[in-house]
């Protein structure tokens, strides 16, 4: 069966510090991978998506970046965090446009 792992679950970081969130998928090959950010009680903002190794589409570049070094690994990074980067970050995967998105448990990031 397919599983998705996302870590850490919670993170408190000072402004200006770096960020690395990691997501890995098991049990499937060549998934489409996604990073979303969610403000409390609101919808999901698409940050990045990837259809293959090394292929990254950016929706909200700003000070965030993403990488896909392996088929089932997706990493979200920042060199210097801003207060506005606080939020609930969700990684997800799918096999195609008419298949469901499967989400990780999310990372609650608080930038202080």
């Amino acid at each position, binding site marked *: 069966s397919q599983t998705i792992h996302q870590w850490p679950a919670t993170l408190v970081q000072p402004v200006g510090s770096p960020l690395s969130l990691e997501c890995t998928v098991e049990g499937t090959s060549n998934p*489409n991978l*996604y990073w*979303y950010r969610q403000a409390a*009680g*609101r*919808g*999901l*903002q*698409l940050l990045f*998506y990837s*259809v293959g190794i090394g292929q990254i*589409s950016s*929706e909200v570049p700003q000070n965030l970046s993403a990488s896909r070094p392996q088929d089932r690994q997706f990493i979200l990074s920042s060199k210097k965090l801003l207060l506005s980067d606080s939020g609930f970050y*969700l990684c*997800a995967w*799918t096999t*195609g*446009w*008419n*298949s*469901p*998105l499967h*989400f*990780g*448990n*999310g990372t*609650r990031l608080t930038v202080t």
Partner: protein
Amino acid sequence: TQLLEQSPQFLSIQEGENLTVYCNSSSVFSSLQWYRQEPGEGPVLLVTVVTGGEVKKLKRLTFQFGDARKDSSLHITAAQPGDTGLYLCAGALYSSASKIIFGSGTRLSIRP
């Protein structure tokens, strides 16, 4: 910039009443999905619609995809307190089917 506008943002109704949530866009979608999310967790798929005009029923929930595949609705009949939660629509863009965007969410509260 493609947008998926969801309304209403908040809805509080009495148990037994009916309600409808709307999802609208100027963009065309290859598919549209509805998710439900509990606090601190990732969204969970309720339904996928792929054909213009398609209607799907899931017990007391009825989902419809617009003829032009630009909009969708979720209708709940005889709402129950267990229906309380955050409902999200998500669409895979026809112009780029790997790009999946979400609506702003509808927070539904059903009073006993």
